[in-house]
Structures are given as C-alpha cells and as structure tokens.
C-alpha cells in the first residue's frame, strides 16, 4: 500500500486510545478466563485460587479450602451459559491478537468507503457484543449459544453511548476517486475518530458537509492539526488530501459560532470542472461555497458578541439579585 508509511505515522499519534482499547480487551479477556475457571473449577481449584489471592502471609494462617467454601460464590454450572462464555472468550482472544489491525481499513479501488467503515466498526463491535453476552450469562438471562450467541459483528447503530466513547480510531487508506464521505456522518458520535489517508486526486472539500458543531473536521495535506484532532475528546473525521484540495480545520472548542470554529488555510484557485468520486463539478463547488459561508465572519460580529456577553452578565446578575431578594422577607420594613 503506497500510503503505508503515512498510516504508520498516524497510528503512532493515536497510541493512547489504541492502547486503552487494547487494555480493555485484554482485561476483559483475563477476567472472563478467570470467571470460566471459577465456574468450571472444583473446590480444590477454588481453594487454590483463594490461596493465591490471599497471598503468602495467609499461607499456614488461613485455610484456603474453608475460605473458598464459605466465601467464594460458586455459581452452579449452566452448560448453555458456559458455552456462550467460551464463545465470547474465543472472540475476545481473537480480537486481542489483532487489536491493532482492527483500526486499519483499506478501501479497495472502486469500493465503498461507507461499507468498509461500517464493516470495520462492526468488527470492533464484536467485542462489545461479547461483553454483552457475558453480562447476560452472569445475570442468568442467557439463552445459550444455540439461540443466537450474540457474538457476531455489532453494527454501529446498535452501540451504546459508552461503547461509542470507547472505540479506537480508524485509519482508512483509500483512493481519492472513491472519497464520498458524507454518509460517514452517522458514525461520528461518542469518541469515534476516522482518519482518511487519501491517495490521488479528490474533490476539493469532501469533508465540508460533515462540519457540525461538536465534530472535529480536518482536511490537511501535511498532517498539520492532527495532534489537536487526536486530543479532541469528541467525534471527528480527518482527511489527508493532496495539495490540490482545500485545507481547513473545524475545531469545536473554537467558539459558539461556526466562523469561530472554522479556519480555512487554503482554497483551490480554480473552480472544479469535472466529476470526481461521483460528485459533479457543481456539487464540488457547493461544498467549497458551504465551507466559505461557514467560515465567513458576519459584519459587526465582534461588537455584537461583546454586547451579548455584557448583556448576559447583566442578566445573570439581575437574576441573582432578584433571587436573593425573593429569599428575604422585607414585608415589615416599612
């Protein structure tokens, strides 16, 4: 893959969230393994575990067999539940082994960016599905592997809020001719981050339609802004585009108005003239215009902003004063 070097560099910038996700996978796998051992163990096995957990000071002082018998809860073995747990362990072990590759997506030439991304997220979602299956078994609600183990890929649409915050970033290598990112908007939630590494000519402002108040959107040719993008704690999409494309950064922390959040550093001199990635020249021009309009500062914006701030403070003070007065009974003051 020609972009392999760039992909590696980008992954390096996301070492922390990638590590965090892997750590969660490893911990969950270890816990599940221990849980299975407990479920399947004899009293002797549980006693050995108790001896280990109590540590060397307890050796000869605390009877681990009694400890295991009296303290460690021993769930009666439920074969169907155990089967689900074993399936989940298999899934998690597999995901741990290829945890870094889970974040790498390659869109084949002529392929669909949306489908490739959805598939990658679904595969990550298998980890969440495995965790859900474990919870069901522990709560005694599992229907067993035969009735649908629930350890298939989990589509993004069915992810919970916390799952959307836990997911690792995706780095997608693709051709500019296939870059139709608008449909990715449905994935931009929680802390989902998608970085598109684009090879070859692409539309000038393909990410413009994804600009939304809480979404970090970055189009860059030389990775400028990627560190800020990586540090953003919300959703975001970035594209490493050819020099010919527009370059801009939409940072949700920039302010309340779109012009405060959006910084355009480069716009192509020439208007688009031909269709790229199924987008007509007119559609591409629309995207550029949308970008400009979002970044345009309204006339008198600073003054209006200052006045609004002052007015707001005054309102707050008035409200506070009114509230204080309402708490005090002044009826007998004359």
């Amino acid at each position, binding site marked *: 893959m020609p972009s392999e070097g760039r992909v590696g560099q980008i992954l390096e910038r996301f070492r922390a969230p990638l590590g965090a996700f892997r750590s969660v996978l490893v911990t969950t796998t270890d*816990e599940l393994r*221990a*849980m299975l051992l407990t479920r399947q163990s004899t009293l002797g096995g549980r006693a050995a*575990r108790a001896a*280990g*957990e*109590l*540590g*060397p*000071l*307890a050796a*000869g*002082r*605390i*009877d681990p067999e*009694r*400890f295991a018998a*009296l*303290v*460690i*809860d021993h769930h009666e073995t439920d074969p169907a539940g155990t089967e689900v747990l074993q399936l989940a362990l298999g899934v998690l072990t597999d995901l741990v082994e290829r945890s870094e590759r889970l974040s790498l997506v390659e869109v084949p030439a002529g392929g669909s960016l949306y489908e490739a991304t959805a598939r990658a997220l679904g595969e990550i979602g298998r980890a969440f599905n495995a965790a859900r299956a*474990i*919870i069901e078994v*522990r*709560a*005694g609600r599992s229907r067993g592997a035969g009735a649908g183990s629930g350890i298939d890929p989990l589509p993004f649409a069915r992810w919970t809020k916390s799952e959307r915050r836990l997911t690792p970033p995706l780095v997608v290598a693709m051709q500019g001719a296939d870059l139709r990112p608008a449909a990715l908007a449905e994935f931009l939630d929680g802390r989902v981050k998608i970085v598109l590494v684009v090879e070859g000519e692409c539309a000038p402002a393909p990410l413009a339609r994804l600009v939304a108040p809480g979404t970090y959107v970055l189009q860059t040719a030389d990775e400028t802004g990627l560190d800020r993008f990586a540090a953003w704690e919300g959703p975001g999409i970035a594209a490493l585009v050819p020099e010919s494309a527009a370059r801009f950064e939409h940072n949700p922390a920039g302010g309340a108005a779109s012009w405060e959040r959006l910084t355009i550093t480069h716009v192509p001199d020439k208007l688009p003239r031909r269709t790229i990635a199924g987008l007509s020249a007119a559609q591409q021009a629309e995207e550029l215009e949308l970008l400009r309009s979002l970044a345009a500062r309204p006339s008198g914006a600073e003054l209006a902003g200052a006045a609004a701030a002052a007015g707001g403070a005054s309102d707050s003070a008035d409200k506070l004063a009114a509230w204080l007065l309402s708490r005090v009974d002044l009826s007998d003051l004359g």
Partner: protein
Amino acid sequence: MTMAPAPSAPRPEPSLLRVDEHTVEIVSDPGEGAQKCGQIFGRVSAKMGNGVWTVEIIPAEIQPPARTPSSASGNRIRIGTKPITNWGDAANLVVAFNEQVLLHRHRLGALAKDAVILIENRWATHDDPDICKAWGDAMEEFGTASYRFIEVPMEEECLTVIDNPRRGKNMFALGMLARIYSRDLEKIRGLIAQEFRKKAPALYDQNVALLERGWRWAEEHLDFRIDVPAVESTRPMVVMNGNQALAIGAIASGMELCAMYPITPATSASHFLSDIFDKFGGVVHQAEDEIAAIGVALGSSFAGKVAFTITSGPGLALKTEFIGLAVMTETPLVIVDVQRGGPSTGLPTKVEQGDLLAAIYGQPGDAPHVVLAPATMEECLLCMTTARRIAEAFRCVVIVLSDANLATGVQPFPRPEMSEAWLAQPPDLAPVREGVRPYDWDPQRGISPRVVPGQPGGMFTATGLSHDEWSHVGYTPDVHERGCQMRSRKLAVFQQMLKPPAVNGDPTGDLLVVGWGSTLGAIEEAVERARQVGLSVSSLHLRFLSPLEPGLKEIFQRFRKVMTVEINYSDDPNDPFVTPENRRRGQLCWLLRAQTLVDVDCWTRVPGEPLRPGQILQAIHESMPQGASR
C-alpha cells in the same frame, strides 16, 4: 574509658576482629546527615549479603537545640552473618558528631560497655568555653564506662573538600565505616549516585570525595578492622523499610487509591507511594485532614475502587466516625495505622504498640472488623494483599497495625514472587439478579454480595442508620438486632478459617511468651537465649488480633505460665495501690485474658524505642514460674 587522639603516623597492618554480628550507631545533630550515613551503610551491608536491621534514632522535636542530648539523630545498624531480626542490645561502635548526642545514647544504656567511639575532636578545644566545659562534663560522665574513645578531626578533614563540613561529615563517617567493615566502595558510590540522582553532578563528586577521604583517614589512622562475614543468599534479596514495603505491597495487591493526610511516622509510606503509584495506575490523594482522607478512601471503595488510607494513632482517632460508617455500610476498606507513642500527639517519632485496643474497640456501638499486624518488613509488604482480599470477601474494614519500628527500620528479605492472583478480581459489575438485595445477608454466614453504584439493578440508598437487607432505614428492635448479628457473624466465619498459630519452641513448657507486631525478632532472640541457658521457654506471635487466632486456650494450657511482651503501658504489680484487681495490663494481655480466661501475665515497656532482646531475656528470667525447670 580510654581517650586517645588518633595517631598521626601511619600504622602497621591493623588488627582484624572477626565477629558474627556487630552493632553500629551514627549520631549527630539533626541536619548533619547521620541518618543518611546509617541508611547507606545498612543498605550496602545488606547488598553485600549481611543480615541487617536498622533503627532510626529520631529526636522528638523537628528542630531541637543543637549540641544537646535531646538533639540526637541518627541510626543504629546491626549487621550479622545470619539474618538479623531486631536492633539488639547495645552498640559496639559509635560515630558521634558531638559529645552531647553521645551522652544521650550513653544515658539510655544504648552503648556496649566496651564500645569503640569515634568522636569529632573539635569540641574539646573549642573557642567557646561553655562548649569546652560541656565536653569536659560529658567526658566525666562517660568516665564510669570502659569505652574506647578515638578522636577524629572530622571537621578539619571535611574542610579540605567542602566549605560547610556540616554538609559532609556524614559521608566522611561513611567512608570510615566502609574501611572499618570492608564495605564495597563501588556499591556505596552507586547508592550515593542514587541518593543524589536529582541533584547537580558536582554534589555527587563532592560526596564521593568525602567518602574516600573518610576511608583514607581510617586506613591511615585506625589500628583495627572488623569482619562480619556475609553469606551469599541463594535467592535474590531486596532491602527496604516497612513503610516502603507497605507501599509496594499496596501496589502489588492492586490498590488503586491511597487517601492520606500527613502524619508521622506514616507519611513516608505515602511519599514513597506518590513517587511510583501513577506508573501502576494508582493515585495518592492528600486530603485536607484525616477525616477527609478516610472519607475519600471510603467513597472510592464504595464506588468499586480498591482504596486504602494510612495514618497513625491520632489520625485513627479522628477517623472513628467513618470507620463506623464503613462497618455499617459494609464497604470494604483497608486502614493502615503506623503506631507511635500516645496518647494525644504523644511521641510522634517513637515506637509504641498502644493502639491495639483502640483499633479493635475504638468505635461507638458494635463495629466488628478485622485487625491484623505484620511482624517484619517483609510482612508489611505481604499483608496488604491479605488485608485487601479479606476486606472484599467479607465487605468489612481491615485495620493493619504497623509501627514506627517497622516503618523506619530497614531489613533485607527475599524478593517476593509477586503474583497476578494478588490483584484478585475486580467487583462483578454484571446486572444484579432480580430479587438480590444490597445487604442480602446469608443467614448462616452474614456475608452478602457487594453491590457497586452503577451496577444495573443495584441502585440503593446507602445509610449509616440502622437498616434492613434492602438498606431501608429501620429502628425496630428486630432490624437493628439482625444487622448487628449479621455484621458480627462475618467475623465468626472468618475466625473459623484461621489456623491455630505455630509455637516457636517446644509445644509445652514453663513459660510461653506471646507477642504481636514488630517485637517478633527481639522476643524470639530472647527466647532462644533463654533456651540456651536451659530455661523451658517458648514463644508465640500473633498476626490476627481481631478476631484472635483459634486454639489459644489449648496452647496456653500447655504452659505453666503465659506472659505477653508488648510496647505499651501496664502497671507494675509492685507499684503503690496496684492490686491484681485494679492492675492495668498490656493491651494484648487484656484481650487474651478475656478470650481464653487464662491468667495471662504481661511485661510491657514504653521507652519510645524498640525493645531489646536483653531486656526481654531479663524479664523472662524474672517471670519464670516457681519451680521452673532449668
């Protein structure tokens, strides 16, 4: 007493005294670095394979007047061929930076009658006549002893290297000791480098120059050397003090939060922990006071974290209310109490075992919980894992009683083979099964599954008020009775898991000495010495104090007399007005008498320093029952 300035001409080959053990003290005014010198000497001795036990000599005041007996600050290091388990009886060799601090040690009987004393010589001829007189008076007081004094021009020698000798005498002294005991200079340089790793490189060079100066001076002027052969350990060893061991134990046991407020002698544990805890995902939180500290630990544990708090006696007193809340809400919590002399602010820097009964019974109402006491530095490390697991298994409070002797003393021990199993499993956050209540007490065992906030189906209102299984407040007799019963039952269940303690020595005999905590080494050495002269004495050391380990009554009944040895106050039976009926006894003694109905006696002292094996041996001799076999 013999007084001799060190000869100026180089001496012939010095005599070599080979001994199984030797005890060294370095004493100075605070700020002169005697403690650092002693710590490095102890560590290098341990690294070379000697058995080592060190005790810090710490003045009671932060800044006592210099050159006074009360300003003595330093370290005692007992080294041996075999493992050393206590600080021994008396120092055989002393390096003293002035005669006043030495006087302090002399008056405490801390020096062997024939001790060799290397003393700074500048005070004898000081310009200030008061100082000269003080020197003369001190020498007169020393006159009754047979010490061998060797005057050392420490200041003069240090001035050849640095401008302020107060900042360098300790390294010079270390150099002398290194020469006398043939310590490995390369290892010492390594320890100095570690010590000054955050300082300018020039400081390291200066300290090494002083070290080498001290070595050369001893080589040229001293007519003796001492050989305490070391035995290479077959296992890798580590050397640390008890507070460092507690901190490492906390990490090894999977603790995630240490909430504390600074208090001597516990603070160094959290300082040490704060340097390294974040590397393991842990946090040290310094709260605004002791109450807040336990509140943070309790809240964290309630929320599913593994948390502990560390304090000393006065802090434990302040935490009383929250301990009760932890018991009532059945929130797992480990509390470490590094005991010091009391009551009130008492003796902040000195050792005592005076918190035992406060730790067990110091809460209003019935607040059953576990109390355990490590007896060595190694056990300080290991006990945290045990404490955590017990706390979580029984949803209870576990108080770990360490003390100032363990906290600051250094001892080598085999490197623990840490295990992932020590981390135990995190709380089970699976949805709570339908019908399971927040205090779903097993009627037999009193144990209930832990419910953590955020656990689906596990929402409940925690309360310190008397409550039922649903955590619903209830003031009816049956609700309170049942809650008390269930919380108490857990301790009975735990006690059933404990094994009877092992007796050190014969299982029957004339006298059984019972101890707990840091006195283990001194008691066992005293008992060993007593047995060597034919006394029928054994000992027993308890780790679990609440509930007490089982089988004690049966063990006690096999001895003609049982006596506790403790570092806490008890009335002497011969004191005025003291009768068997009103005599206040040692704290463990009280417990054992109540629990076993055996007429357990006690020998206790509160000297503000660890017990010496010789003192205990004397007490054993005096306590042997009439007609005891010899």
